């Protein structure tokens, strides 16, 4: 909005134009939600990501596609701050703020969210209690309390078709694969992160499950200033959550980026035709 003020200072006479111009001018200058520069990451001495670059602007949804073992989960875990992954060089920043020095919980409080491919069970920890605690720790002062919290919880649960009985169950304990994924999306909706990373959220879901979690992702990201990174090796979920950009990750490198059509192309042609490009890039 700074720009609009400076424009006004210059004495523009047509107010209808001002709004339009503001949008045009502000958009490119807005800081990316996520900015990754030349990121190299290894685990136990083996480098897995060989220099990744990625910018996600506010309101954008990006997809990273790639086969198993291409480094997708490494990317997701590294952004979240898993201690096992060593960052050898490069940078990750959230709205311009460096994340690399922060622990996972600090990143979460800054607004990074990861929907896990394999969410962990915590027996004895009740879902309702866990959600309240997590919302309080991440959203702090902004966290809804009392009846307001219960209301937001209720509507989010309806959105992702989670019954009330869930609240007294233990976190991911004895959940079916589909329940785990819906529970991740429920957390996404309640925590309202600035950056949502969804690691293989569609894997193991049937078509109804994909539709439900997609509804949740769209509700959480669309129309907000947040960004999302969807990690997947199928294009199915991308039919329901339309990405603005699609990147193909092969052997730890982004070998191709494009619009939503790239996902369809991959669906048709597979990854092989891009592998040669990866080699050329070496």
């Amino acid at each position, binding site marked *: 909005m700074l720009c609009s003020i400076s424009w006004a200072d210059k004495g523009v006479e047509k107010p209808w134009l001002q709004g339009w111009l503001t949008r045009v001018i502000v958009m490119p200058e807005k800081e990316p939600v996520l900015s990754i520069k030349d990121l190299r990451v290894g685990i136990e001495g083996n480098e897995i990501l060989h220099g990744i670059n990625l910018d996600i602007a506010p309101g954008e949804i990006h997809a990273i596609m790639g086969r198993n073992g291409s480094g997708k989960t490494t990317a997701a875990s590294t952004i*979240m*701050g*898993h*201690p*096992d992954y060593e960052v050898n060089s490069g940078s990750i920043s959230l709205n311009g703020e460096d994340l690399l020095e922060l*622990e*996972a*919980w600090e*990143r*979460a*409080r800054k607004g990074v*969210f*990861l929907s*896990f491919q*394999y*969410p*962990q*069970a*915590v*027996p*004895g*920890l*009740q879902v309702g209690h*866990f959600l309240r*605690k*997590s919302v309080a*720790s*991440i959203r702090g002062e902004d966290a809804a309390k009392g009846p307001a919290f219960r209301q937001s919880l209720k509507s989010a649960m309806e959105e992702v078709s989670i019954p009330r009985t869930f609240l007294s169950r*233990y*976190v991911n304990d004895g959940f079916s694969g589909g329940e785990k994924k819906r529970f991740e999306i429920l*957390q996404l909706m309640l*925590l309202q992160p600035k950056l949502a990373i969804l690691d293989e959220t569609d894997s193991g879901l049937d078509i109804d499950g994909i539709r439900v979690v997609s509804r949740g992702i769209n509700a959480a990201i669309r129309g907000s200033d947040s960004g999302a990174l969807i990690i997947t090796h199928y294009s199915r979920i991308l039919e329901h959550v339309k990405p603005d950009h699609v990147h193909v990750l092969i052997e730890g490198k982004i070998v191709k980026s494009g619009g939503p059509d790239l996902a369809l192309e991959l669906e048709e042609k597979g990854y092989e035709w891009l592998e040669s490009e990866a080699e050329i890039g070496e």
Partner: protein
Amino acid sequence: MAMEDARGAVGDYDMGWHDPEHSTIRFDSGLSEEVVRNISSIKNEPAWMTEVRVKAYHHFIERAMPGFGDTKALEGIKFDEVCYYLRSSDATEKDWDDVPDDIRNTFDRLGIPDAEQKWLSGVTAQYESEAVYHSIREDLEAQGVIFLDMDSGLREFPDLVKEYFCSVIPYQDNKFSALNTAVWSGGSFIYVPKGVKVEMPVQAYFRINAKNMGQFERTLIIADEGSSIHYVEGCTAPTYSTDSLHSAVVELIALDGAHIRYSTIQNWSANVYNLVTKRGIAHKDASIEWIDGNIGSKLTMKYPSVILKGEGSHAEVISIAYAGKGQHQDAGAKVHHLASNTTSKILSKSISKDGGRGSYRGMVTVSPKAENCKLNVVCDALILDDQSQTDTYPTMEVANSSARCEHEASVSKVSDDQVFYLMSRGHSEEEALAMIVNGFFEPFTRELPMEYAVELNKLMALEMEGSIG
């Protein structure tokens, strides 16, 4: 040893302060027949009690140490250095204002008068060897409920005490039941008349204050036919670099159709040997539940037991043990099915951390004549690091083939992925650990009155603090 050193040895312990010792009577350290007779005589006890004490004393001297549990640590107990009787206040008061200031302050800090007002039916507060405060709600008294400290119980209801004292746990049971019988002082005496249901719990709080103190309270609870009561016991002690000894005996008698629940949160400082014998007898259709939490102490050896004597009776033992640095929790449960259609459930959960050791020791027996019994034993251990240890000694002796037995045991470690998952939801590593640990104990915690559950969760969160290396 400086206080800081002691804290280094035992970790941070919130209840570890102590008052200046003030005593109206303090026996010299060490044990002899004379000491035993002196205890009995200053209490003006009937001759039969003196006699039982003396017999028990001789049995204690002759009896060998238990051959199981932490035998090495047991050898370290210096019986000659223990003070066997210390009286800090000459009376058991009915009004907190009459309790000596120091002692009153201690119980204030422990939150006892506050809890009493809010949600308890009655309270006994024991400091060293004697109860210093005692009270029961008037409506319960009017219904004939007796809730006294054990010494007053013996004075006011000698026949009832004589009938049941040592009836569930004879002094010959083990070395420490003999010791307790010889030198017992304080504890609770409860009688609930037929059909009376005491809705709110009664609580006893045991506090050791002096160095090298031995606390030997004796509790006897009799629930007459169709009655019910929930008794809650809490214990703490100051942190000293020398050891204290806590060796209690608790006997429960649940007559036909009665229900006794006995909940304990033992949070002794890490210089206390906690060697306790607890056992109940359940008559026809009666039920006895031990809810047993062991957080503190240097060594705990305790196996709450139930004898299912009457047909259709039920036993439940739900216990947790937390073994931190320098601690060994050797805990478990015993149930003996002597009658038909009896059921039992044992759930034991232990956590070991910073080199602590948690052991489950359990025994369930079914006698040949007991038909259609149901037994369920579950023991779970959670290990928080590589230095810590857990072991399990389950025994089942089933002499009747109609019994249905279930036994499950599990040992798990906190995984990095579990911690990372919780951290990704905004919780620090310590908070994440506390969530996992409190979740693990949840099946126990949910059995506690709300106020205790909250306290226990806080306590475990404190234990997780500063634990991240």
